[in-house]
């Protein structure tokens, strides 16, 4: 273990949030879903909301930046083996460092539709980053079929660490043949990683238990 990692672990153990957490457990947590574009955030938010409320949070699409506004579902009561918890699900637009309207034209959108979508997408990214100040805990959703060591993932995790916001890293899409959730575990060894498939529902019970254990 490197000196930096040891430093991180010690810092995490004695952080103000962690110390206060021993004395106080929040009744309802605002759970933000962060991640790169098309990582499966809305699919996961929908899965959780459908499991416990029977309603969806948002629309899922293969066209990037489908979620361009922050979408909320409140008072989702989840029962786990360890106990029950109440949460507000906040599905964020995907974080990106670039938005090229021409990418949307490849999916059959007109030039005007693409430009509008690009404009909304850039606003969505800005809003999602601003909302980091309003969430109690975060699920950082990553696509297991992609290289996890991207600047977007590094920036999201770095900001959560700097703000002392508890998080779980989600290795999503494990049902895919190309999935390599181990590469996510190797990239972020200092964080709890839960492997799931939001589309098939694989390992969702593990996720609920982990949320109860690490985020409340």
């Amino acid at each position, binding site marked *: 273990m490197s000196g930096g990692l040891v430093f991180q672990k010690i810092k995490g153990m004695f952080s103000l949030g962690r110390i206060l957490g021993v004395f106080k457990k929040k009744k309802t947590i605002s759970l933000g879903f962060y991640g790169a574009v098309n990582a499966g955030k809305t699919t996961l938010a929908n899965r959780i909301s459908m499991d416990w409320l029977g309603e969806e949070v948002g629309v899922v699409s293969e066209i990037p930046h489908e979620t361009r506004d922050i979408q909320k579902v409140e008072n989702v009561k989840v029962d786990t083996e360890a106990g029950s918890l109440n949460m507000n699900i906040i599905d964020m637009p995907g974080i990106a*460092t670039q*938005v090229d309207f021409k990418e949307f034209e490849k999916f059959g959108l007109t030039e005007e539709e693409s430009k509008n979508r690009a404009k909304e997408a850039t606003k969505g990214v800005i809003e999602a980053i601003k909302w980091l100040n309003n969430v109690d805990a975060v699920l950082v959703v990553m696509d297991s079929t992609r290289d996890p060591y991207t600047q977007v993932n590094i*920036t999201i995790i770095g900001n959560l660490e700097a703000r002392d916001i508890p998080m779980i890293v989600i290795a999503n899409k494990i049902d895919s043949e190309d999935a390599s959730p181990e590469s996510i575990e190797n990239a972020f060894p200092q964080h709890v990683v839960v492997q799931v498939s939001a589309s098939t529902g694989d390992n969702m019970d593990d996720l609920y238990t982990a949320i109860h254990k690490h985020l409340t």
Partner: protein
Amino acid sequence: MAAKKSGSAGKKKTQKKKMAKAKEREIRLDFIPSEMLLRKNTDDKLEMILSKVKKNIIVVLEEALTPEEESILIQNAMEEIDSKDFFGIEFYRMGHKDVGIFDRLSSFLTKRRSGMTIVGPTRMVEAIKKEPDHISVFAKVGG
């Protein structure tokens, strides 16, 4: 005399065109040393980065941006995106969290940050990938 004047004007035009074409084919990297960065506050630093990147310059900073600076850089880049010339940035930060305890101590004492950050326009820098022993920047000309 008039013929001579119009001839030299023509030459100048051709030279300008040649220079413009050469500019389209060139990749420019600006290295910003830590001494220079120490003198700038976050806003000035990020403004300098983005103004260079918008001119198709790849910027290499001799320090790691903090996560907060990275998130502001992304937000500022999003605000600047248009549908003509600028579609965003590609960047990569190494160091900062990855460095050892002695590097941290040295950074604390000298007020200098270790690490490095590379930022480029997405139309030019296609990808920046971290390999086990190096970082690869994939850039193209005339993007």
